[in-house]
């Protein structure tokens, strides 16, 4: 059983990392740390895609990882610009104090 690393090991590792990222999004109030937790979740999905790609011998998963990375990069740029604009307006990055769009 412990001779080779099967697909399940990678999937379970990715699931654990995804759950850690979701705990981070749900518990932290600092906008930048929420942001980094989202990056953690995106990376665990990337790990799933790459492990399926290499165990099935199909390069489609790797192409998708490429696209996910591009989307993550543009999300980082826009999200951090929003955080900057927010800090300029309200002098805080605590998401609880930002309730301007709350109904």
């Amino acid at each position: 059983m412990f001779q080779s690393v099967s697909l399940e090991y990678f999937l379970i590792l990715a699931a654990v990392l995804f759950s850690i990222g979701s705990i981070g999004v749900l518990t932290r109030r600092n906008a930048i740390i929420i942001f980094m937790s989202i990056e953690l979740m995106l990376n665990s999905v990337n790990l799933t895609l790459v492990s399926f790609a290499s165990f099935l011998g199909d390069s489609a998963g790797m192409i998708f990882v490429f696209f996910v990375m591009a989307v993550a990069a543009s999300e980082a740029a826009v999200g951090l610009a929003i955080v900057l604009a927010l800090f300029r307006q309200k002098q805080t990055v605590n998401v609880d104090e930002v309730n301007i769009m709350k109904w």
Partner: protein
Amino acid sequence: MSLTFIFFTVLAILAIASAIVTITARNPVISALSLVFHFFMLAGLYLTLNAQFIAAIQILVYAGAIMVLVIFVIMLLNLGDEEKLKEKFNLRKVIAVLLASVLIIQFFLIYLLTRSGKIEIAENTAKLSTVQSIGQVLFSEYLLPFEAIGLLLLAAIIGAIVLAKRKLT
């Protein structure tokens, strides 16, 4: 135990540990640096999966570009007084951890119920994951998504500049 298994175990433990440090550290700089460490561990895991190109762009794009951006923003905001950001409600944390454990139990149930039976990496993976073969697929079969990603990045650049400008005139 095979060498691959030892390599995988060490990388997986370090990846989980640095992910936990990322979400629990009080200082954002520490959590950013441990996230960089996490990205390096993931690149190592991609290498165990025979995906060299993905490992390289993982380090280049994530550890190189995105995290530099995050650290720049942390430095710009000068978040010295982290005490103000201290979380007040503990009930919310408990509920969050409960929800996440429900999530992970669901994942484990799915994996236990559906064994894939794949225990070896496919033989042609090392050939598939070279820059040449990925480039050939990317510029033929996935050409339209590639162009769309280019447009998305352009829109993101313009959006970031507009949002980060001091005054909209």
